[in-house]
Structure formats: C-alpha cells, structure tokens
C-alpha cells in the first residue's frame, strides 16, 4: 500500500492536469465577438436585430446562376441577400464593412465584384437602407444551415457585437438572374 500510494497520487495529479488543460478556453475565445442572433425565413416578416453599430434584417435571399450590375455580369453559383440596415444610435460608425457567410465550416465574404454593393454605405438613424450582398459560392453549396454575419469594421471585431442571422439554404428559391441594385435609403 505504501509503495502504491505515490503512484496513485501521481496518476491523480496527471489526470487533474489533463482535465484543467482540456477545460481551459483557447486564448482567442478571450477576444471573440459577441454574436447578436437573428433568423430569416423566406415567407416570414423580416426581424431586425440590433448590435452596437447596426440594426439589420434580411428581407430576401435568392440563388442565381447569373448576376448583373449595369453592363457587367458574372456567372456562377451566387447567393444574393437583400438586407435592410440602419444606424441604431450614431451615424458616426454605422456601416456594414464586412459581411461574411459561414456555411459548413467554410467562410465566404460578400463579393467585391459587383459595383455598388451595400458594403461601405453610410447608414442613417431611423431610415432603412436596402441593399444587396452577393456571395459567390462553390457549385455544391446549395443547402444546409448558413449564418450571415455583419459588422462595422473591415476585420471581424474583437469584444464587440456581430449580427449573426441564421438561414436555411434549402428553403431559398433559385431565380434565373438578378440585377444587383445600388443601395437605396428610404421606405
């Protein structure tokens, strides 16, 4: 018994060390953003969610094979999301600078290719600006659960709000083509 005791104590300490290491959060979780969750369903009323710098809702989403913006067009598997957004408290920093779509472990940014996207548009207090975000996706991304994240800085914020709206890609309709309209403020 006296011989076994140090071994038992040693094994216990090692197990405790493993448990503490496993339970310690990764360093990056100290800085992650705070998701402000919303949801979108094609036939339901849009439900705006408000973060520190943005109030936003998805009002429409469609898949298409071709998008146009004036004379320019591009083919591919495009998911075009129409968003209304406004400034909740201050117009100073109220802008959608980064829009990303998280699907099945992959991250896509709203495409820089069409001119006049909603990205970078100054938002107003109490006046909705409607605009489009176009995501260029691989051909096999047509279903599953996705999350649209909107934030006001060019990089994913740390310790700040991020709007995270969930949407089911299976429910989203497909249309032959979409004209990407410039953002427009007003009712």
């Amino acid at each position, binding site marked *: 018994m006296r011989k076994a005791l140090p071994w038992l104590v040693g094994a216990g300490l090692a197990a405790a060390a493993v448990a503490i290491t496993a339970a310690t959060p*990764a*360093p*990056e979780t100290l*800085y992650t953003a705070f998701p402000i969750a919303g949801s979108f369903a094609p036939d339901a009323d849009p439900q705006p969610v408000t973060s520190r710098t943005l109030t936003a809702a998805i009002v429409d989403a469609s898949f298409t094979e071709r998008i146009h913006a004036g004379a*320019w067009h*591009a083919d*591919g598997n495009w998911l075009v999301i129409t968003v209304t957004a406004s400034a909740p408290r201050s117009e100073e920093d109220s802008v959608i600078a*980064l829009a*990303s779509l998280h699907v099945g*472990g*992959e*991250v*896509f*940014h709203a*495409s*820089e*290719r*069409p*001119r006049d996207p909603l990205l970078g548009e100054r938002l107003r207090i109490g006046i909705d600006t409607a605009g489009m975000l176009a*995501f*260029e*996706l*691989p051909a096999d991304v047509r279903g599953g659960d996705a999350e649209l994240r909107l934030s006001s800085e*060019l*990089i*994913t914020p740390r310790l700040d709000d991020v709007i995270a709206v969930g949407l089911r890609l299976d429910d989203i309709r497909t249309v032959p083509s979409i004209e990407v309209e410039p953002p427009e403020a007003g009712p």
Partner: protein
Amino acid sequence: MNRVGQAWGAVRERAAGAARSAVGRSSIPFWSAGGALAILLVSVVALGGLDRAEAAPVQYDVGDEARLSLFSITVLDARLADEIEEESVSADEGEVLVVVTARMENLAEYPVGVGRAVDRVASRLVGVTEPLLSLSGVTPTSSPYVWRTDDSAGSVILQPRVPTEVQVVWPVPEDAITAGVLTLDVHDADARRGQIILSSDHITWRRADLAAQFTLDVGEAP
C-alpha cells in the same frame, strides 16, 4: 611502487572481466540491439534519410494546373506588354510589363486576397518580400498589379473553392528578358496561426518549398 603495481593489476583484472562479459551470454541483448540500430542506420542512409529535404519543383507549361496545399494555379497565358489600356497601366522607360493570366483557386476554408490581406488573413501571394508567386531570377521594379480580366470591381479576393481568372502584371527591367522565356516560381505555403506580436486569430501563408515552375514563352518585347 607497490601501490602502482596493485592499481595496475586491478585495472588489468577489470579489463579482462569486461572482455569476458562483452562476449558472454549475458551481453547478447546488448549486441542484438546494437546490431539492429546499425542495420536501421545503414538503411536510413541508403534510402536518403539524411539528405537535405529539398524536393525538386515540378515543371509545368502554360495550360497545366499546379495543385498545392493551400491554392492551385493554372497559367493560361503569358505575354509582354508596354501598356494595358483598360486598366490605365503602362511601363516606364526601360521597363516592360510581364502579363500572366492564370486561373487560381483557394483551397483553404476562408477567403484570401491576392494583392492584400483580408480579415486577418495574409496570403502573401504577390507584392511582398518572399511572395509565393515570383518570376525566377527577375527583380520587378515595383509591386505587381492584380485584377480580374472581366471588368469586375474591387481588389481580387479568392473565395474558398471558387476558381477565379486573375491577371498579375509585373513591371520588370527590359534587359531582364533575354531569350523570350521566363520562369514563374510557385512556392507552396503553410498557414501559420499567430505571430510573435500578433494574436492567434491572424493567419499568414508562410512561404515553404519551391513546388512548381511554369515555363512562360513570352516572346520578344513589343
């Protein structure tokens, strides 16, 4: 004197004992382990295990696809130009533009910019010291220009698994092009998370081995 003699005797006795035990039955495990190690070492050396780890780059021509660990590139066309009117870019005196059109695909699960960093990810493909894409033996006179060939807006971002046609334009000294043939060096990359002063959510595509070389037949300067 006598002490020295005694000590010498003791040493001789020990040496004899050691010799006996070195060939004795009890030393069999020692010799077999040593023999196994020697065989292992010889086979490692014979199979090239101690050579410098440096894979020869795979040679490609225009039209071939080089698939690396984080991205793939297919060179579609390479030529020399004095100016590219649509993008309002022209070569300075004594310079020529090397225009490489390629289809690129990002094999990572996050977007990367070709000429710039996006959302804490630096791809370092072009326009940095030690870029992943460079012209072999030629020093460009300034950072290359990068754009899409289809009049899209914005600087080029490669979304995951979406092949994209990109044009990269290097301004180079005219006398750097002698035989009308250039080589595009393509380095593989490791995605490193974090750096000494940056936190772990930064990703940098750090240059690794020279994995592929494209032979570009660019012809004479215009």
